[in-house]
């Protein structure tokens, strides 16, 4: 009698453990990283182009074909026009309901001004040209091809959109562990230490705000691309050539034309992140 009860308890216990564990295991094997077959299935699903940008969905590991959105920032042209960078930053703040905290420790920054030596520590020299040392540089998320933040995220709240190479955030899923902030070599990520709403000066009705306790960053204006518009910062620099935006994998795109002609640099190439943002200095 006692033995039977014991056996029953053992089987019951094992079944409970199996029952609890199974969904996690199924989920695990369903992630693209482990089940390569999944990518092919997703490809068909993603093959709906966003207006005006012709994003073609789902390419697997062999990346060069397909769309990889990128940006070239020409610091010479940016600094030629006074106020241009400020206008670009302001348009980003307005488009994305970015709060402006009075205390620098709480700051939220998507695209911002910083000294050249900070943005490009690996390219700084003791006797840099005056135009380099006197003018600010621009920093924003690099939308890396090998993003360390995505590697670090424990919930896939931040991920690389394989359809266009944008490193995106899902604010609904972020648990606010800030591992991505420690992982990003560019300081491109900000955390909502407080509820941002009281610090948003003006609302854009077509875009949400964020909530306290999540990490946020530049999204390459995915919401504007979908409507066939340029990113906000690109639009506010239109006509100056200060920022060029487009598909890095398309040899005929405007960004590639610029990159083919001019010498460009990237931030911290030694970090192996393969940024999608290029700079001409």
């Amino acid at each position, binding site marked *: 009698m006692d033995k039977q009860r014991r056996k029953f308890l053992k089987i019951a216990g094992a079944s409970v453990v199996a029952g609890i564990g199974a969904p*996690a295991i199924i*989920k*695990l094997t369903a*992630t693209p*990283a*482990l089940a390569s077959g999944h990518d092919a299935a997703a490809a068909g699903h993603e093959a709906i182009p966003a207006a005006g940008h012709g994003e073609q969905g789902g390419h697997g590991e062999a990346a060069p074909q397909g769309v990889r959105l990128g940006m070239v920032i020409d610091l010479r042209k940016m600094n030629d026009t006074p106020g241009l960078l400020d206008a670009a930053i302001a348009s980003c703040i307005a488009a994305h309901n970015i709060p402006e905290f009075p205390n*620098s*420790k*709480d*700051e939220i*920054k998507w695209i911002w001004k*910083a*000294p050249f*030596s*900070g*943005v490009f*520590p690996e390219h700084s020299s003791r006797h840099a040209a005056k135009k380099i040392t006197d003018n600010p540089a621009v*920093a924003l998320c690099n939308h890396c091809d090998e993003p*360390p933040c*995505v*590697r*670090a*995220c*424990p*919930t*896939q*709240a931040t991920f690389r959109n394989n359809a266009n190479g944008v490193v995106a955030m899902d604010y609904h*899923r*972020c*648990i*606010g*562990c*800030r*591992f991505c*902030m*420690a*992982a*990003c*070599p*560019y*300081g491109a990520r*900000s*955390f*909502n*230490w*407080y*509820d941002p709403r009281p610090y948003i000066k003006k609302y854009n009705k077509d875009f949400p705000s964020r909530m*306290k*306790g*999540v*990490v946020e960053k530049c999204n390459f204006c995915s919401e504007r691309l979908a409507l066939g518009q340029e990113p906000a910062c690109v639009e506010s620099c239109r006509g100056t050539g200060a920022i060029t935006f487009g598909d890095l994998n398309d040899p005929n795109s405007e960004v590639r034309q610029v990159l083919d002609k001019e010498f460009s640099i990237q931030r*911290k190439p030694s*970090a*192996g*992140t393969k940024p999608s943002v290029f700079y001409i200095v």
Partner: protein
Amino acid sequence: MIEKTLKGKPAYWIWLAFLGMFMAVGAACYIRQYNIGLGLTGMSRDVSWGLYISQFTFLVGVAAGGVMLVLPYYVHNYKEFGRITILGEFLAIGAIVMCLLFIMADLGQPMRALNVVLHPSPNSMLFYDAIVLNGYLFLNILCGWVILTAEKKQVKPPKWIYFFVYLSIPFAVSIHTVTAMLYCGLPGRHFWLSAIIAPRFLASAFAAGPALILIACLVLKRVANFDAGRKAMNKLITIIIYAALLNMFFVGLEFFVAYYSNMPGHIEALQYMFFGMEHHGVMYNNLVPFMWAFVVLAFGAIALLATPAARKNDFVLGIACLMLFFAFWLDKGVGFVLAGFVPNPLGEIVEYIPTMNEIGITLGVWATGFMVVTLLYKIAIGVEHEVES
């Protein structure tokens, strides 16, 4: 066996009430933080991890340190540790409870914590950390409880439990290795980007954990009439000395690599920690006193522990262990995590000073851990006394 926690001398209850007070304050502080946001802490955009994560890192080590009792006893059949192995296992439980609480306190959206399970991400080290930490917690509860129950009944523990006991040994190593990997795999943080982080973590863990157990033994000897035995204590001291020396050796290696190679990225954080760093004409040196206190206390403690005359005296021995525990807390529970964020990725220096609310939560979690350990030790000692009488 739980009933043993319900009977005790007045000192026992006063101690529990004392801890309970800190827990209550911590809970109140946490409710504030939950409602208002992590802005109530001293953390910032640039120093995005603070006391919570540094305490977590240190306490993972304390938990792993318990294996320094399990390994000699079960693998090398070192009988002298028979009485105190359970103390190591129960300390690990308390330490991991603190680790998990610190993680929860640090989350911006704690209600979504289960997303780690619902959206498992094998590319993230936090995924593995969640697995090994919970696994180690489970193993210690299981092994500790089953073996203590067997002791109470004065029978041999069931054979199957030894599988889990042996499994807990690689798990102990893994919890601190994976915790080190949270840091040492990040491309932009030069101070953390070092292959010696995991061995260094383990070395300091194998000193700090046993040091705390030794302190516990000395306290229990006075308040609970529990004698761990001089031979066991001397063995523990030997383990602590070697592990502590290894940690200091590894710290020295970091210094050599940084200053001999003269690579700015490697020097900066060490410079900031130990000597202070000038930036835009301002001297930033918040951590300097802490780091030198770490060095002085660590070598002082090692010297005391290595002096036969000094360690024969229970009081001096206790002080030496306390010094060592505090030294390695300064090293890993303060310096290591905070200095990793200096300078920030854009070369700026932002210093971190914890707020009162944050310290309140931190003390509350520590008090909770001590409460768990106290209750578990009360059970373990109660059972041992019962068997002996």
